[in-house]
């Protein structure tokens, strides 16, 4: 008999006998389902958060901050600097011939979340009238845009869904009094959609400020970035850092994910190790139940390979069943859930997605636990001394 036929027949025979060990087999299934459900949920949370943050950036935009600033809140740019930045080469022009650039002033306001009534911060972003030329993805879907000079706001759809009292016609108390919401905008559920927007000059005067936080420009083409950056960083009157917007948001998403990363890794290591030991336990007992069968097979001439493969296949099959159950739990509980995370300076609303890539990751995770859990018992099964094993039973 060929080695392949030996292996497949031993494996098939073992699989047929699996229902007899359903009790101990369920340990590996439940253990792995737990690990996969928890890990997929944590990964889906971090992945979806960073996707939403990353979606905000575009390779044909650049963001200018004060040199050394790590984010918008730690950056200030004075009026003179803003004018110089807007004059730099490489910036696209809007329909009116003006540079597609916006100098943003970012404040924050406390509002109440719909879901739990908790008070949370929401960003209020003052932007230049050229914002539509800089961010063409921005679209007014209800009401109208704000009028510069008036205390008017527009609200992102994500913010509208999650926060109370920010609908069209509502008023929001900012530093100098009440501002009216006059429209709703969408921008592909990115970070901006979790904010309120208004005219920068109007907001600056309300807050008695003269400096903005950042300047964002749309480049004539993605390739114009180097030209733009060089022009600004070699200008002796400026002290700024220039980043491609995609890079800026990549850094932002890294920061946002750091905490969840620590939690995810800690939980993953502990649950994973726990599951590996549970799997080892199950497979050792599966092998010990099969002692007589394995010894008989070896006695009549079957090779060790068939025995090893049959144990590994059993472990992997149980792991896959566990992975399917775990992935289903995570998908049913969390796919499409809207999550709001934030602190007092702003919030981020996004949808959790348990993507096919994550499901694949769950399967890989389960298979590695199953493989490790099956390997040692498989080796023991193969090394079973035939004569002793037959006598012992």
């Amino acid at each position, binding site marked *: 008999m060929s080695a392949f036929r030996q292996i497949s027949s031993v494996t098939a025979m073992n699989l047929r006998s699996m229902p007899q060990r359903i*009790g*101990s087999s*369920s*340990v590996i299934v*439940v*253990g792995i*389902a*737990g*690990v996969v*459900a*928890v890990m997929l*949920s944590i990964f889906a949370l971090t992945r979806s958060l960073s996707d939403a943050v990353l979606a905000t950036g575009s390779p044909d935009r650049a963001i200018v901050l004060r040199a*050394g*600033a*790590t984010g918008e*809140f*730690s950056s200030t740019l004075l009026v003179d600097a803003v004018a110089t930045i807007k004059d730099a080469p490489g910036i696209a022009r809007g329909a009116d011939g003006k540079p597609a650039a916006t100098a943003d002033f970012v*404040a*924050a*306001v*406390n509002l109440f979340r719909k879901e*739990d009534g*908790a*008070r*949370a*911060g929401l960003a209020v972003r003052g932007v230049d009238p050229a914002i539509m030329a800089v961010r063409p993805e921005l679209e007014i879907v209800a009401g109208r845009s704000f009028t510069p000079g008036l205390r008017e706001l527009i609200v992102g759809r994500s913010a509208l869904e999650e926060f109370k009292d920010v609908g069209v016609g509502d008023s929001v*108390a*900012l*530093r*100098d009094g009440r501002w009216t919401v006059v429209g709703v905008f969408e921008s592909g559920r990115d970070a901006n959609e979790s904010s309120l927007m208004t005219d920068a000059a109007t907001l600056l005067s309300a*807050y008695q400020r003269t400096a903005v936080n950042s300047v964002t420009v749309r480049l004539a083409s993605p390739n114009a970035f180097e030209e733009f950056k060089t022009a600004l960083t070699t200008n002796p009157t400026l002290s700024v850092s220039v980043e491609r917007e995609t890079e800026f948001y990549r850094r932002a998403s890294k920061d946002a994910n750091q*905490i969840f990363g*620590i939690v995810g890794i*800690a*939980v993953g290591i*502990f*649950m994973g*190790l*726990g*599951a590996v*030991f*549970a799997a*080892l*336990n*199950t497979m*050792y*007992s599966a092998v010990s139940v099969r002692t007589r069968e394995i010894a008989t097979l070896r006695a009549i001439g079957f090779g060790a390979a068939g025995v090893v493969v049959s144990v590994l296949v059993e472990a992997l099959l149980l792991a896959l069943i566990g992975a399917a159950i775990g992935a289903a739990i995570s998908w049913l509980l969390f796919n499409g859930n809207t*999550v*709001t*995370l*934030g*602190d*007092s*300076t702003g919030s981020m609303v996004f949808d959790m997605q348990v993507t096919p890539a994550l499901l694949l990751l769950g399967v890989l995770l389960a298979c590695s636990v199953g493989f490790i859990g099956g390997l040692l018992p498989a080796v023991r099964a193969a090394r079973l001394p035939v004569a002793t094993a037959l006598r012992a039973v």
Partner: protein
Amino acid sequence: MKYFPLLWAGLWRRRGSTVLTLLSVIFAFALFGLLHGFSAALDGIIDAMSDTRLRTMSRVNITQPLPLAHRARMQTVPGVDEVSYYNFFAGYYQDRSNSVQVGAIDVASFNVVYPDIKIEPQYVDAMLHTRNGALVGEDLAAARGWKIGDRIPLGSAVWTRKDGTESWDFEIVGSYRSPSGKVPTSELWINYDYFDEARAAANGTVTLYFVKIHDSASAAAISERIDGLFANSTNETQTQSEKDWVRAQIAQIGDIGFFVNAIIAAVMFALLFVTGNTMMQSVRARIPELAVLKTYGFGDTAVMCLVLGESVLLCSVAAALGIGIAAVISPPIYREFGAGGLNLPLPVVAAGIGLAVVFAIVSAAVPALRAQRLSIVDALAGR
């Protein structure tokens, strides 16, 4: 106690299986300790917060500063003992990514408002006489190896000096600690007067006020009075007790409790399966031995208790080890979350052991009953 050797021998009867079960239970309880410990530590922070201390900040948002002139008016509110203030500094050491929590305070009034933080009188004195002096929290000092007499150059991510530079030099003249151990001491405190004079913008403003009041029962009324003073001004305030404020901050992060409990439930469910199965197999393999015990005169209940006892012994030893691991690795993780100096709360240890015993009994219930009902003749005959 005299049955202990018997329990011990029973556990080691199937050595491999026991060791593997022990290990999976250890990791499950390590995870329990970490997660439950984290949410308990957060609750501990809330409990440690005073309700005879209020926080007043801008109604719009904490990023919006309040004028220092508010203080004098707040002090006129009946029931207010003292008003102190604080300004965020957004400090970093050497590198921007290496942030240090720094607060600009007024030491004299701060000491009155925060009796639960201990600053030695000579350190208060040193702060008052050293303009660029700084007080280092015990945890921060331990984490960074800073000590009294050190000169610490810090950068600020937000504040530029009037001379246009971003670097600030501070001299550590003292330290502070929390005798109860419940208040994190991971900040560096600098003199507000020095900071305010040197910064280029927002002079004469503060991030928030601390208000010490006589009586916790009047917290709501006094909060209302204070906010009423500034209603309809450009700098409206929002006053809350410190406890409520911290609770709201934690609620803002999102629903941590739900995630933690969901994970713990998943882990515990899986655990019940593992231990239940091990005990089941262990009893099945030892049916003849249990029958021999009964033959020697052990009663049905005694045999049942032996099986339960083995399970309880296994689970509680594993739980103790697992929670021990959690206790060792928790403090560094809390530090990552900005809560340095906290330890795994003791009630978590007790809850873990208690949970382990319940688990042990539940998972061994079926095999224990089986052992109790065992008939000697059938068992010895292998039927």
